[in-house]
């Protein structure tokens, strides 16, 4: 919708509450509200405009403007513009209305605001702590008056109390937070009746590192490295999302060759992780041969990554203003050869998996996430697309070189493990053709532009389709080459609750493969 028209409509509908509106960087529209009451406007945007609430986050602006701000990021299908509604939360009465009852997708995000900023979500159906554990003292680390070097006293008091599962023959099976194998910590509390799972309770945020606070401390060019380590397997996606945000705020024009290179590397990251996931899903049903081949394929790509980026996991390649190094003709040729070999071998891997009836039997009808539940929970990425959620940032808000590439977004309605794997297989094929197309261009031009001083007090939103799904970075620049605020949203944050729904009614022995089919990041969630 045209911005002026929208503003007119909103003003006639909501009167003085809607104070002003302006567009930034072409596709971010900010609407400033005069009071915290977000409910009516959200209802209108979600109801009549069919907008989707992408993210909710807060900012402490007490020192400058005397209030906290809550930001509600919306997107509309078919519109590349993000609609960002800003509502003030008075410092004297830090409360805002909760949307979680109607919109479970923001459940954890509102509770994060409670924990980190000390703003109360009024009417939240389950206002217990989520981001800071129950034994934390009463502090709100993302407030500006909380120094980053604060040393907290040793934590005491009650750990999280899980809801009891009662009934004859109902048993509580605790798993984690420390798991077998090299994975990150998270606690899963299953209520089981024999083998079938009745109910699963999750506890995350064991690896909370205060990343968003750390961003406010580092010089911007160093913060790129921090962005790369938000979630180890999505280094390049998070790094790119962060650099894009800075580039938008400082109005830096990235050379087109660098955009193409970023696109290639983003797709390489997707390929590596998707093929590893396909193998891991096969392992979890005991079909280890498929994993052996998937690991081999992943290794082929990692070796190519090293030649292209100097790092197997693509770290240290993206930088503000482009990419850190150019590609010679031999590197482009190497990429082409690697992709050709990968394509052949990947076809064999898919054939191997399809030929194994016993694997298919295990994966079909296992861990079904129904589309309507996925919609309520705001599931994004692979898990969403397997359950009928047709979202892909590359198509909906094109960045890097995606607007020049043609690709299909695979969407299935079934939502079982088999289809989550199928989405990955389809996306691998799309990625291959995208890399081929992008690498056929001549990439000998400029790959990086000099970065001017970053102007203070600029806001920018950046979205990237990481291999897991939609990654959102929102920044406000500060003085002295620092950031005032950096909000990070990893797709895992939305998607963890999907696991709770998907496992219900399945047997506990199938949990690992259902979990693997989502393969969510602990570190990205916990930050």
């Amino acid at each position, binding site marked *: 919708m045209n911005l002026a028209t929208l503003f007119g409509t909103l003003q006639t509908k909501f009167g003085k509450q809607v104070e002003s509106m302006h567009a930034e960087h072409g596709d971010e529209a900010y609407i400033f509200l005069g009071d915290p009451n977000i409910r009516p406007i959200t209802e209108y945007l979600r109801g009549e405009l069919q907008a989707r609430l992408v993210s909710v986050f807060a900012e402490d602006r007490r020192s400058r403007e005397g209030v906290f701000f809550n930001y509600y990021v919306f997107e509309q299908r078919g519109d590349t513009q993000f609609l960002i509604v800003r509502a003030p939360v008075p410092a004297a009465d830090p409360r805002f209305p909760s949307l979680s009852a109607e919109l479970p997708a923001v459940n954890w995000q509102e509770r994060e605001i409670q924990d980190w900023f000390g703003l109360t979500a009024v009417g939240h159906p389950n206002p217990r702590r989520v981001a800071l554990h129950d034994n934390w003292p009463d502090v709100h680390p993302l407030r500006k008056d909380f120094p980053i070097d604060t040393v907290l006293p040793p934590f005491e008091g009650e750990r999280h109390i899980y809801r009891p599962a009662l009934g004859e023959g109902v*048993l509580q*099976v605790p798993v984690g937070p420390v798991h077998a194998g090299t994975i990150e910590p998270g606690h899963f509390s299953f209520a089981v009746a024999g083998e079938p799972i009745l109910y699963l309770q999750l506890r995350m945020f064991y690896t909370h590192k205060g990343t968003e606070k750390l961003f406010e401390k580092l010089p911007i060019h160093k913060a790129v490295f921090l962005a790369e380590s938000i979630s180890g397997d999505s280094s390049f996606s998070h790094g790119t999302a962060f650099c894009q945000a800075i580039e938008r705020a400082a109005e830096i024009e990235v050379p087109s060759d660098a955009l193409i290179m970023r696109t290639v590397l983003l797709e390489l990251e997707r390929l590596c992780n998707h093929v590893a996931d396909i193998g891991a899903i096969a392992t979890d*049903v*005991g079909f*280890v041969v498929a994993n*052996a081949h998937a690991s081999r394929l992943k290794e082929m790509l990692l070796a190519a990554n090293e030649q292209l980026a100097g790092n197997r996991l693509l770290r240290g390649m993206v930088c503000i203003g482009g990419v850190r190094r150019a590609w010679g003709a031999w590197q482009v040729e190497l990429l082409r050869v690697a992709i050709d070999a990968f394509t052949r071998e990947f076809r064999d891997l898919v054939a191997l998996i399809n030929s*194994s009836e016993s694997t298919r*039997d295990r994966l079909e009808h296992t861990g079904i996430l129904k589309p309507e539940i996925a919609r309520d929970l705001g599931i994004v990425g692979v898990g969403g697309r397997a359950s009928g959620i047709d979202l892909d940032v590359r198509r909906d808000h094109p960045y890097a070189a995606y607007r020049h590439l043609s690709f299909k977004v695979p969407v299935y309605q079934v939502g079982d493990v088999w289809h989550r794997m199928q989405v990955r297989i389809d996306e691998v094929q799309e990625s291959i053709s995208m890399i081929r197309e992008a690498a056929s261009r001549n990439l000998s031009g400029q790959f990086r532009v000099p970065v001017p001083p970053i102007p203070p007090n600029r806001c920018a939103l950046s979205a990237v389709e990481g291999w897991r799904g939609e990654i959102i970075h929102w920044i406000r620049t500060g003085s002295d080459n620092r950031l005032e605020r950096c909000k990070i949203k990893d797709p895992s944050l939305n998607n963890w609750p999907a696991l709770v729904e998907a496992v219900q009614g399945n047997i506990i022995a*199938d949990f*690992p493969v259902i979990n693997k089919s989502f393969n969510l990041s602990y570190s990205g969630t916990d930050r």
Partner: protein
Amino acid sequence: MIEVLVKSVIQLILLLLVAPLVTGIIRTLKARLQTRRGPGIGQPYRDLFKLLRKGMVIPNTASWIFSATPYIVFGTAALVGLMIPMTATDAPLSLFGGVLAVVYLLALGRFFLALGGLDTGSSFGGLGSSREMTISAIAEPAMMLAIFTVALSANSTNLSEMARSAVSQSWRFLAPSQILAFSGLFIVLIAETGRIPVDNPATHLELTMIHEAMLLEYSGPYLALIEWGASIKQLVLMTLLVNTFFPFGLSSSWMVSGLSLGLVFYLLKLLLLACCIVLVETTNAKLRLFRVPELLAVAFILGALALISTFLF
């Protein structure tokens, strides 16, 4: 008396040494088929050696059952090992009805293993024990039926007698009843040794484990005893399969020349059977847990058909 003792000692040494070797060979073959190098066939020996020297962590909640279980599991497996013909048709021991004792001694070991899993009160142990019992409830009768088929054709439940009768008509395994019984017993072997498609011996996922879940609380020498016992049990079942159906090379006496020839044949047959197991494990995914009883029901029906066809043909 002394003769029995000498035979028992020889066979016991053979059992203790060959059992980890078979496990090592299976693991190495699997690794090769997965394009891995694998840790080598000597790894089970090194593991046992390492575990035997380590200290133990015993949960506070554990009772005497927890401590008795490793000895019972190891002891029953070794005892059963002395009752089956390995290289010679005469087994060192023949106790209470031969093959029936074999089945029930193995069941005793399994019973205590399940108790040991439950004893500590850990939820994974409980899961493992309940799964193990579900599976063995069908695996056991299937095994009995298959073995009875062989016993019927030998007119004896004494394993040495069965082996002698098999040697005397060495092409008998081509009879329909024998083929059916062999197939049934092969499925039981897969289930009893915790292999894909029934259980995954290499998984790290506690929630999917059967056999391994019962062992999670064990460590050090106790774990070594159970692991060793499990590999002896595997060897016993494999021996039962190769020697009662394919008695080639079984020595009819305990003379050195006969025994060494018998040993070569025996190891070759084990190697072939190990290859079959590895192929099944590599080409299949693990079954859904609730599908496992269906597979074992197939073994049961094969056993039943085998028994019936003994009277028909």
